[in-house]
């Protein structure tokens, strides 16, 4: 190439051609680019849909999000009441917060311009500071793109046809791999903990399971629940109802994970080895406990650990209360009860069986010989149906029926069984009868979706070919020539909207009488407590209010400060975990009352 390369000098001048072209730059006022449909601009939060789980805040690696209280948003079950605030000065618009938001409330918008001299102005509460952002959503998440894992690891169960042949446990439990996978779904928001009556450390033990530390999980569980395998099998799990994942998917199987953790300790000795509890030296105080149900057992366990001398007086021959005599064995097997109770005994809990307070031993004696009393007496008496011929042979309350079966005796239900009620007790009565080969119908006043029973129990009943006749109101039991139940008569009902805004009521349809032949009628419409043990002289202090509930304070202390009470006889929720929570609260109460007073 010569120094005077003419082409090389002239060629670049061809650039002059561009002079007449339209410029790339956009002039005002069109300066605002119309951003792409997926643009990652400023955040917007649907404040109604957001549940304040804080997952957005946790994932943000720039720590651009903090969770704050807003004036008009209340804390409630399943909603922490907090909402995210974004520091737009820190945000890098990675949108990880969007992709981990379980509810889908948090999204990015097409908006991207904001200027201010004040750094604090860049703190935005999405949805509050830009309500209009809702019309401009761009980078959003749906359940396909979200990083939340919406599908539950299915639980393996005995097949419906197979399981009605015996009382073998229906639920088979998670394998190690399944449990790890299921535990991974938890986002540790803790909304569940708030709702659990016992405030169990749910995210913590699930995290331990996810990491493969099953022993840690069990230890964490035993911190405030000494009967956890029972809960792992039959808990009413209100926690799962508020699970953040449940908003757009299937709740984390909290109950099954607890079950998994507890089953890693197959014997009482193994539980003791893993939990390795610290048992304090005796403090010289004696506590008498009435009833070895979940409430009484819980109080006893934690009192014993704290150095109290504890004895339980139990009317029946076995511990467990309604979880032993009510809940059928295919849900909660005997060896599981025994394992857990044996462990409690091994740390010092004493149980006197077949000792009914008020009959075998007087309440006054108990009161005199102990420094404090805890009554966990449960609901032992069934409500009556209030219909004709309820007391003839062949008609039996569900709790009595289940008690007979669970203690190992038998009861002849015949070929056709009718169960009245829509709760778990009714389903238990029905499914047990199915296991005796009967043809079972449940009569329920409202619709299936109104049934208070656990949805998995309802599904279980349906899998076992139990017929649920909804919107039916029993009117009388018809007696046969042999004096036993021959049939039941019921009216069909319409659901009528409640004027006061309550749930719809069933109203009988006149002339719709229907007769259903059957050999056994099982009533399962509710239970109440038996206070025959409580002497008159105590009744002015230990108050029993309408609905047969004992009145207590936050530490489950009655008007007689030496007497504490908990469980079904105290709380309205009537489930085992509430009884456990009561037992635990009473321990704190008794300790405050005796040791720290």
């Amino acid at each position, binding site marked *: *190439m010569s120094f005077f390369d003419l082409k090389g000098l002239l060629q670049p001048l061809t650039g002059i051609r561009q002079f007449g072209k339209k410029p790339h730059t956009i002039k005002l006022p069109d300066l605002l680019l119309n951003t792409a449909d997926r643009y990652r601009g400023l955040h917007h939060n649907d404040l109604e849909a957001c549940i304040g789980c804080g997952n957005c805040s946790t994932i943000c690696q720039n720590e651009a999000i903090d969770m704050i209280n807003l004036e008009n948003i209340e804390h409630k079950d399943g909603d922490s009441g907090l909402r995210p605030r974004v520091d737009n000065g820190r945000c890098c618009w990675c949108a990880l917060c969007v992709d981990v938001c379980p509810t889908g409330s948090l999204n990015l918008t097409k908006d991207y311009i904001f200027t201010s001299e004040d750094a604090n102005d860049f703190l935005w509460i999405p949805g509050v500071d830009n309500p209009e952002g809702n019309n401009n959503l761009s980078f959003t998440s749906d359940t396909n793109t979200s990083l939340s894992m919406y599908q539950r690891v299915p639980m393996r169960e005995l097949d419906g046809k197979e399981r009605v042949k015996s009382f073998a446990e229906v639920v088979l439990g998670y394998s190690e791999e399944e449990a790890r996978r299921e535990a991974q779904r*938890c986002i540790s928001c803790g909304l569940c903990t708030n709702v659990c009556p016992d405030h169990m450390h749910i995210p913590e033990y699930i995290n331990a399971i*996810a990491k493969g530390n099953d022993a840690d999980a069990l230890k964490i569980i035993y911190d405030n629940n000494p009967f956890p395998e029972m809960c792992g099998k039959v808990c009413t799990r209100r926690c799962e109802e508020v699970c953040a994942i449940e908003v757009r998917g299937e709740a984390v199987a909290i109950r099954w994970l607890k079950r998994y953790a507890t089953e890693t300790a197959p014997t009482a000795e193994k539980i003791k080895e893993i939990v390795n509890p610290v048992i304090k030296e005796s403090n010289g105080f004696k506590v008498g406990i009435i009833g070895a149900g979940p409430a009484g057992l819980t109080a006893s366990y934690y009192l014993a650990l704290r150095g109290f001398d504890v004895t339980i007086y139990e009317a029946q021959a076995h511990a467990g209360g309604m979880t032993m005599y009510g809940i059928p064995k295919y849900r909660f097997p005997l060896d599981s009860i025994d394992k857990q109770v044996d462990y409690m005994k091994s740390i010092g809990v004493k149980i006197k069986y077949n000792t009914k307070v008020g009959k075998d031993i007087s309440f006054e004696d108990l009161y005199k010989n102990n420094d404090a009393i805890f009554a966990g007496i449960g609901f032992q008496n069934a409500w009556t149906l209030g219909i004709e011929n309820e007391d003839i042979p062949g008609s039996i309350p569900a709790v009595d029926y289940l008690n007979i079966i669970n203690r190992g005796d038998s009861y002849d239900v015949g070929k056709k069984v009718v169960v009245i009620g829509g709760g778990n007790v009714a389903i238990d009565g029905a499914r047990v009868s199915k296991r005796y080969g009967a043809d079972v119908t449940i009569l329920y006043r409202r619709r299936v979706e109104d049934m208070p029973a656990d949805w998995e129990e309802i599904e279980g009943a349906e899998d076992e070919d139990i017929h649920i006749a909804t919107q039916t109101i029993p009117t009388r039991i018809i007696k046969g020539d042999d004096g036993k139940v021959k049939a039941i008569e019921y009216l069909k009902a319409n659901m009528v909207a409640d004027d006061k805004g309550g749930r719809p009521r069933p109203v009988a349809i006149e002339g719709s009488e229907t007769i259903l032949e059957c050999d056994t009628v099982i009533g399962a419409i509710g239970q109440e407590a038996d206070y025959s043990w409580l002497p008159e002289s105590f009744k002015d202090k230990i108050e029993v209010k309408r609905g047969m509930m004992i009145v207590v304070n936050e530490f489950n202390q009655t008007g007689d400060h030496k007497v504490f009470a908990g469980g079904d006889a105290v709380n309205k929720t009537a489930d085992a975990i509430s009884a456990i929570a009561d037992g635990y609260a009473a321990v704190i109460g008794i300790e405050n009352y005796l040791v720290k007073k």
Partner: protein
Amino acid sequence: MREKETTLYIGPQHPGITGNMMVKLKVTGDTIISSSTHVGYLHRAFEKLIEQRNWLQSFTILCRFCVPEPDPMELTYARAVEELEGREVPERAKYIRVMVMELARLQSFMLWYAGQSGSAGLYTLGQWSVGDRNYVLDLFEMLTGGRVYHMYIWPGGVRRDLPEGFKEKTLKTMDYLEKRLDQYNQMLFDNTIFQKRAQGVGVIPKDKAIEWGVVGAPLRGCGIKSDVRIDEPYEVYDKLDFIVPTAEGGDIWARALVRKEEIRQSISIIRQVLDKMPEGEYYNRVPNPMKWTIPAGQVYTRTESVRGEIGFYVASDGSDKPRRVHVKGAAYTHGVTVLDKVLKGQNIADVSFILNSLGVCPPEIER
């Protein structure tokens, strides 16, 4: 007159390249006697930060190693994590990833056009190419929601599928850019000023190139055919038809010739990928990122970035966070260890011209 030896500092404010770094020169007159590179002006400790972030969070930091080409970082990390975990990537995602890599190459080349011509005092072309680069960024915005940092390729695949109309828009953009390239080349390669300044300047001797650890276009500009995309194909590069251009001479000119052809190859690859891309999943979902752990182990993963091979050494101790992510990029070798050797005997005005041709990206040195 005897000339005295003087010390000169170029930088640390953007010494003709993006990012802070300083080149300390010893000169006599206009001739460089020796040089040393000084870094530490933007140390952001990314590698360390990553050790405190979980496996997913980390991917939002990585891309910031190098502003002009964030995407190869995302891919290299994703591939490393996938290899450690044994996670499969859907076929469609692999095609999308290759497309993103080549789009990244395109936009980065357009910045190179601006840098390389600008540091020779030729400013018109830079205005053009940076303007045209926006059309590629438009594509990125449409695909990922972001223009410069995309945070789009993550372990398991890519974050979102192609949006509607993306293919058509991309093909149109490719046609446009291809035409524009002819005009760019008239402005640069046919330009005597560029020719005179590039030829024989900043020479890397062929017999030293490998020993010095040179990679990418600078290596291929020494006549050595080396490119991770064909040497150790990943994703779907082995299913595509493209050439790896080389040129002889080892000077700025040779490196420019290599890039001139590579950019055309990228356009061709993008067209092939869009044509062959199968339908199907684009993402093999990772578990809840808060509880996602990676089995203990270590890998070294290589990717061909625009500036040459980058490698990530990723180690896991089995927990939810990387134990170590170490990045070996082109910039460290080219900007720190090779630069001194190449600058010797050159003129002061050539420093940023040479830096541009070596593809030095200071933030990547100081990750």
